[in-house]
């Protein structure tokens, strides 16, 4: 009986956090993939400076902790450089998308490089320009290879949105923490529900990843 009451108390409060979690996720997905493609292509560029700068970005963001990056963006940057990223929403979204963008740029780069060389040669023999070879032949095949990995990162991104509670955003975990601090005995129930919330949010992403895997098996010539 006690647990059921607790559930009735906890559930409506936690659900308030869903909106923040989902909006941070969606914004991070859009910005994260954009970053991944831009950085991935920059690393394949003929321009050495562009390649080096992007490589530096990727290594820094892959090599340091996401929480620390988040704190840098939200707390340190405004003090050091007077740069305000706007709000804790944008600080969170930027940290997540720059971090995951760095990882995913490696997927973009690796996939493009792993399209068989003969594909580019056949396109050259048909007198396609460099841009046409990429757009019509290499990229469509590379994307198919990227998709399953991208799906995995979707799920990782969802989970990392819980970090924004640390910069005061009212997401699912934030409400969970509030509930726990007001009544410690409810902690197991609260965190169980938090887990379930994240899992339910992840379900469509897991399903999507499976779909993408199936799709990506078709139509690729890899080396």
């Amino acid at each position: 009986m006690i647990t059921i009451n607790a559930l009735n108390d906890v559930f409506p409060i936690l659900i308030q956090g869903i909106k923040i979690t989902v909006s941070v996720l969606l914004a991070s997905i859009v910005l994260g993939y954009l970053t991944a493609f831009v950085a991935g292509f920059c690393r394949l560029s003929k321009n050495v400076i562009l390649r080096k700068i992007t490589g530096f970005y990727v290594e820094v963001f892959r090599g340091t902790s996401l929480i620390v990056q988040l704190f840098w963006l939200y707390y340190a940057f405004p003090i050091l450089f007077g740069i305000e990223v706007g709000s804790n929403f944008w600080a969170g979204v930027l940290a997540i998308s720059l971090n995951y963008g760095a990882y995913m740029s490696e997927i973009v780069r690796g996939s493009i490089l792993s399209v068989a060389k003969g594909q580019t040669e056949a396109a050259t023999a048909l007198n396609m320009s460099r841009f046409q070879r990429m757009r019509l032949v290499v990229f469509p095949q590379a994307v198919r290879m990227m998709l399953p990995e991208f799906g995995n990162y979707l799920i990782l991104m969802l989970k990392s949105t819980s970090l924004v509670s640390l910069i005061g955003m009212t997401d699912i975990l934030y409400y969970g923490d509030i509930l726990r601090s007001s009544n410690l005995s409810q902690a197991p129930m609260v965190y169980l529900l938090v887990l379930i919330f994240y899992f339910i949010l992840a379900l469509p992403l897991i399903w999507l990843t499976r779909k993408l895997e199936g799709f990506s098996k078709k139509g690729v010539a890899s080396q």
Partner: protein
Amino acid sequence: MNEPMVKFKDVHKSFGDVEVLKGINLDLMPAEKVAVIGPSGSGKTTIIRMLMTLEQPTSGSIIVDGENLWQMEKSGRLVTANEKHLRQVRGDIGMVFQHFNLFPHMTILQNCMTAPIHVKQENKASAKARAIEMLDKVGLGDKLDNYPSQISGGQKQRVAMARALVMRPKIMLFDEVTSALDPELVEEVLEVIRDIAHEGRMTMVLVTHEMEFARDIADRVLFLDKGVIAEQGTPSEVFGHSENERLDSFLRRFRR
């Protein structure tokens, strides 16, 4: 007398420290069919890959229809050609590869329509009509909507030929196009090449191990050995008798 369609002038090619081609001089006349034979590693494929701009010569020049392929003039000096120049000159050249290199994410029809639409700015309807015409010609008019993964190796190679033909090349290069095929699929591909050759309009260069076939359709046979053209002549000259010991021992391996 006709001007040569393609002219190789003292072309050398090295990969790292290894000099694969050691001075190739070669004229290809319009509509001439040339077979290139020779032991593996002799540089046969490299010759046509340089002509297709897939490989840059280390030195020497290649002239295509009067235009210098790998060099262009810039403020009075000859410099290495840029992408734009290469595109201008190689437009008349088509190539069929040993491993087909069909685009796996496109249907057979799309494989044959994409380049005319995007490279030659043909409208979709006429590109489609032309693609279907060429696919019919290679006997694959019923496979238009299939994907490359759904057809056999011989069929793939025939699609690759249709894909090259829709671009109306003046020069067609064939890079060991039957080497990757199961023996029973070789003939259907050779059949198509024979048809194309008999139409006679195109200059054709065939790098091949099919000696019978080379004898059949070539006007001239080149024997490449250790990076030079060691012997050349009409098929009967090259395959008949030869004083060249290397050619002799090479050909003996193909006779039973």
